């Protein structure tokens, strides 16, 4: 009896969580004339017209490519710069450790709206506006607090003895970082990578202001501003939403354990 209640609540929870997405999926399969009618809930003739429509122009592919490149490179840079910093904080003698970590954490609290306009002016003056680099530099920086915070706690869990042993064997600090600490913290690094990737894939405000054409426009902006003077292609928006959410769902299913580690690692261990 109690088990039954538990499973019923679990089913309700799952329905609540994925229901909206499911509805978007159903919407994306409806023909235009069915979109604004309810009932029926389900499409009479499920159709892929909206999916075909969004992939017909090259615009959408280009936007996906922009997002993929920006998010991957951001992940790469954030991990490289962040892990170096975390290594320095966790394994090397550093003065002002607590101060630096506090500073890094406080930066994660900066409201984006406060930095977006000066950042925009700077990016424009160095000629990077509407390029991938505008977003990559910005996202890398704003991912650093999270990266440093998680990785520092992961690195600290590695016993110092390993590090000392490597130093005695003649490794420079960088070699011991690269050869010993990094490989041993692979799970932590991986967890961080997923979080940074998802953050960069989803970010909206900076992308909205720093990009303006499909040369660098990313997915969230493209979805928010689907082209049209009067007509709004709801079916296509639904199809696009489902398409760009699919990779994230695969990530979540494949790596939910790592994601949870990353999320809790960032908060709990701090």
């Amino acid at each position, binding site marked *: 009896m109690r088990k039954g209640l538990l499973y019923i609540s679990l089913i309700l929870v799952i329905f609540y969580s994925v229901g909206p997405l499911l*509805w978007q999926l159903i919407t994306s399969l409806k023909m235009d004339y069915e979109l604004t009618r309810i009932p029926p809930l389900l499409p009479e003739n499920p159709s892929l017209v909206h999916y075909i429509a969004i992939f017909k122009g090259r615009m959408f592919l280009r936007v996906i490519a922009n997002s993929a490149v920006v998010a991957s490179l951001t992940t790469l840079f954030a991990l490289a710069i962040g892990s170096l*910093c975390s290594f320095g904080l966790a394994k090397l003698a550093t003065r002002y450790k607590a101060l630096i970590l506090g500073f890094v954490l406080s930066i994660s609290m900066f409201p984006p709206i406060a930095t977006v*306009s000066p950042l925009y002016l700077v990016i424009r003056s160095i000629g990077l506006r509407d390029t991938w680099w505008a977003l990559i530099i910005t996202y890398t920086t704003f991912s650093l607090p999270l990266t440093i915070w998680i990785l520092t706690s992961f690195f600290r869990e590695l016993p110092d003895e390993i590090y000392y042993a490597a130093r005695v064997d003649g490794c420079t600090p960088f070699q011991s970082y690269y050869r010993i600490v990094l490989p041993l913290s692979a799970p932590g690094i991986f967890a961080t990578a997923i979080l940074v990737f998802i953050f960069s894939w989803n970010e909206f405000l900076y992308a909205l202001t720093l990009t303006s054409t499909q040369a660098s426009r990313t997915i969230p902006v493209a979805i*928010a501003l689907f082209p049209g003077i009067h007509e709004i292609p709801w079916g296509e928006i639904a199809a696009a939403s489902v398409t*760009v*959410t699919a990779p994230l769902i695969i990530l979540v299913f494949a790596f939910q354990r790592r994601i949870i580690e990353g999320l809790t690692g960032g908060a709990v261990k701090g």
Partner: protein
Amino acid sequence: MKRSEAATWFIAPALLLLAAVTIYPIIHVIYLSLHRKLLIFGISEFVGLQNFLFLLKDGRFWGALGNTAYFTALSVSGELILGLALALLMNKAFSGKGFVRAMVLIPWAIPTVVSAKMWEWMYNGDFGILNYLLGTKVNWLGDPFWALHAAIMMDVWKTTPFVAILLLAGLQLIPPDLYSAARIDGAGPFRLFRHVTLPLIKPMILIVLIFRSLDAFRVFDAVYVLTGGGPANTTETLSVYAYKVLFQTLQIGYGSALAVVVFICVGLIAIGFIGIMGRRVAYR
């Protein structure tokens, strides 16, 4: 010692980048907020604190501040209650845990813009599925009372997974012996929760509160895409207002002043929470 010299080289790149991309803009935005700067007309003059004085008389600013505070308070408490319930549920023994967790995480992973579009569609007063399922005729996004609550409900849906996952981690740290001991003393489920669970996950709740409050106070994309601030600015938050002033009417000076105010508010909230938590947030 040599080691600390090396440490500088490891830490410096990150700090330099942070300074260049976050600290410099903050200083610049404060500088801009002291100017009257209208981009399109090429006007730029120093006006001291005039923008801030004007802000005190700006009804729209106070409205936006009120909306933001209300949004933060309601959505954070909603997420906390729902997240706690979800965490307690997921902490029970059942098969398919990984699957359920992944399902629960989905709203968190979906881009906010996509969720806003999804909910806008569901909230449609004419053919939206929400009214259909509930059998109501609520004008979700067009009614001055409902619109802000609709935005809050969406935010709760989107961020409850994050809260639940953190609280679940907190729950899993509680030693099971504590429960059995309390049960032997004759504590019912409610008292168990009240006297064992709650005190033990209190630190985690505080951490969640600080993260979520700061996030909710900065809310931009959810509202910007869902309602654009309407009707009658009843859903306009500080970030949305600042964005409109900065980028739609291009009053860079006044918009910067608004942005500075958001910055100050967030800082005050953070300091407040850290005060409450004592030194718990300080790195171990």
